[in-house]
């Protein structure tokens, strides 16, 4: 086996065999699935328990137009509030809804009080408010001279879709995606951007610490007496990158599986509920749809994305971004000594483009044509995050290719430059290093 191969193998296996790697690889997607599941579950479950309400309406609005929610079971009574307060629990109610006399029924704002042993949760309050507003609206419609049918027609639903200017124009092809697919695309852009961001800092940091460790415990001198420093650095970059890629591939397989499992579970949950209480489950599904969680439709829309481009391109940008940043981290690791603070000082300028790129994600997914978007998705320090972010919305293919070409050239440049710094840095001890010094090392001829 070549020496580079030996180094790559050591860097790879010593990390992959660690229990912490296995835990992170398998638990992260599980934890993410669990978080998504719990947040969806709670947002739909909250306020779903049916409540028995004693309604005291001194205006008689609700008597005529009862609250519509099926989760609220209401009794409309004409009793004194103070009397009701004393006996509502015994009578089996959860709370009293009291609507005091309103002088101007047509007023835009109503204040309604509720009385219960415990404060109501946010979701319950929202639900009751919503039902009240609907009933009041109906009441107001009735009392005014507006025609109910005419009024209903005033509500117009507009769907803004991107049309084709010229059906033979290839650049426009990707833009036929629907709004729902765009939403999924945005989520995907963020997911990829986030993965890139994590990889740069986690695996870049790993490379840096590994270089510092070798330098500090001086094994580096023994190793470089058998291989060129550049080979050692490159082996490290490839080995640690391989660990990152392994993790990514496992996630690419695992995340959709866990996603499906979550959906399956939620779906099963919903149908189980349907048996028990059709009203509840119907409401839940409706609610989920209104919050953009129309799952079957989401899967259908996700399938319309150009995965054949997105997955390979993302892997290329993933590797390119990793190599650019990891080589910078390797250079920093070789230059600094045991002083962590010194390392921080160099990490800040490296971090800025990564963070900036992450912040720019929504800007580039929105408009494909501005010069700014073109620039940041070509510039090698931001393109690993921002070009993948554009992929779901189907950027012109030539831009993707150009960006990849620039990326590959930059990888070669950055690895070469880091190698120049590295070969000097690993032998520098006890010297305070600044950026000017690093640039000098690049030009040294030994």
């Amino acid at each position, binding site marked *: 086996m070549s020496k580079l191969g*030996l180094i790559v193998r050591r860097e790879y296996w010593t990390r992959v065999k660690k229990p912490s790697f296995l835990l992170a690889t398998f638990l992260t997607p599980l934890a993410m699935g669990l978080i998504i599941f719990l947040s969806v579950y709670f947002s739909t479950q909250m306020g779903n328990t049916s409540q028995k309400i004693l309604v005291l309406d001194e205006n008689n609005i609700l008597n005529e137009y009862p609250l519509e929610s099926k989760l609220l079971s209401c009794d409309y009574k004409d009793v004194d509030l103070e009397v009701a307060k004393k006996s509502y629990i015994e009578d089996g109610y959860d709370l009293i809804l009291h609507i005091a006399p309103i002088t101007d029924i047509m007023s835009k704002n109503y204040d309604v009080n509720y009385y219960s042993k415990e404060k109501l949760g946010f979701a319950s309050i929202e639900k009751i408010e919503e039902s009240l507003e609907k009933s009041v609206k109906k009441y107001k419609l009735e009392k005014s001279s507006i025609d109910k049918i005419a009024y209903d027609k005033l509500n117009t639903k507009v769907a803004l879709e991107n049309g084709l200017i010229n059906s033979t124009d290839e650049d426009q092809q990707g833009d036929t995606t629907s709004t729902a697919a765009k939403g999924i695309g945005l989520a995907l852009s963020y997911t990829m951007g986030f993965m890139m961001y994590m990889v740069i800092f986690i695996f870049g940091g790993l490379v840096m610490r590994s270089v510092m460790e070798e330098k*500090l415990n001086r*094994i580096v001198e023994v190793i470089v007496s*058998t291989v060129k420093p550049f080979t050692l650095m490159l082996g490290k970059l490839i080995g640690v990158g391989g660990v990152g890629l392994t993790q990514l591939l496992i996630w690419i397989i695992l995340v959709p599986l866990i996603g499906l499992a979550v959906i399956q579970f939620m779906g099963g949950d919903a149908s189980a509920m349907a048996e028990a209480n059709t009203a509840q489950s119907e409401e839940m599904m409706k609610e989920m749809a209104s919050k953009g969680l129309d799952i079957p439709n989401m899967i259908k829309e996700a399938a319309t994305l150009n995965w054949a481009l997105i997955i390979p391109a993302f892997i290329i940008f993933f590797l390119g971004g990793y190599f650019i940043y990891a080589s910078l981290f390797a250079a920093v690791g070789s230059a600094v000594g045991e002083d962590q603070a010194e390392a921080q000082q160099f990490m800040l300028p490296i971090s800025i483009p990564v963070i900036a790129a992450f912040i720019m994600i929504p800007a580039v997914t929105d408009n494909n044509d501005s010069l700014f978007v073109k620039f940041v998705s070509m510039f090698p320090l931001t393109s690993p995050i921002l070009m993948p972010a554009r992929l779901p919305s189907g950027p012109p293919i030539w831009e993707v290719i150009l960006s990849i070409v620039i990326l590959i050239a930059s990888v070669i440049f950055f690895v070469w430059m880091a190698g120049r710094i590295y070969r000097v840095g690993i032998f520098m001890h006890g010297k305070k290093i600044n950026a000017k010094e690093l640039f*000098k090392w690049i030009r040294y001829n*030994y």
Partner: protein
Amino acid sequence: MSNILSLRNVVKQYHNHRAVNGVSFDIPKGSIFGLLGPNGAGKTSLIRIITTITGADEGEVLLDGERINAESPKYIGYMPEERGLYKKMKVGEQLMYLAQLRGMNKTEAKEAIGYWLTKFDNKDWWYKKIEELSKGMQQKIQFIATVMHKPKLLILDEPFTGLDPINTNLIKEEIHRMNQEGTSIVFSTHRMEQVEEICKDIVLINQGEKILEGKVEDIKNQYKENIFRLEFDGPFPGDLRSSDFTIIDDSETDVTIKVSEGHNSNELLQALINKGIRIKSFTEVLPTLNQIFIKQVEN
């Protein structure tokens, strides 16, 4: 006798100073050779050139008659002054890795490591992590890592710093044994007493230049100053002092005398006998390498 290593006019220029300035010397095959010089003399720079870590700007380095190249590390064992191991790696894995980097195949490496671990009574260390070993044990592993591929040339940079006395002896013995089996050994150090004890040939460098070279014996003879030490019984006559002989140190039972130029030891003995001194022993005092070293460096 052919040379295991030959340096010809080697120059190494760093950014703002010349670390090695036209150094030439030969290391005969099978010798134990001392590369001496104060800190910062250029020893480490020279070693890094020989071990192919850096290249020379001018001149050439021949290993066993061939210019050093990418294959050379196979034949060189190098223990740097500042040495370390991967703390989290297991002893066996680590040695296998280093052996393969030195060009051994897996079977050879396994065999050699097994041999050395058994030799140092550490057969069961294979699965131990370096960080679980004591410092003395780690030093043994470092030594194994340096010699397991049977190098033709073994370069040890300040090998005994940080070693406990037991390991120092163990490693000295091993060095001698390997030397007898044909391995040439280079000691780089600024501690002269070790060199006198171990090395037959030395080169002394200072500020990047060679200032002295040769056999330890020859050098000592070359720098001897006609000083003799005399042990005696009874009283020492006080009137020996003359322009011919100078007493530079004396006690009740012995005295050190410098014989001035133009005179020799026989004349001194004659003079002493004439004075009726009862001589117990009479030996020439050769300068220590340390003295020669300081004198040369001061010059």
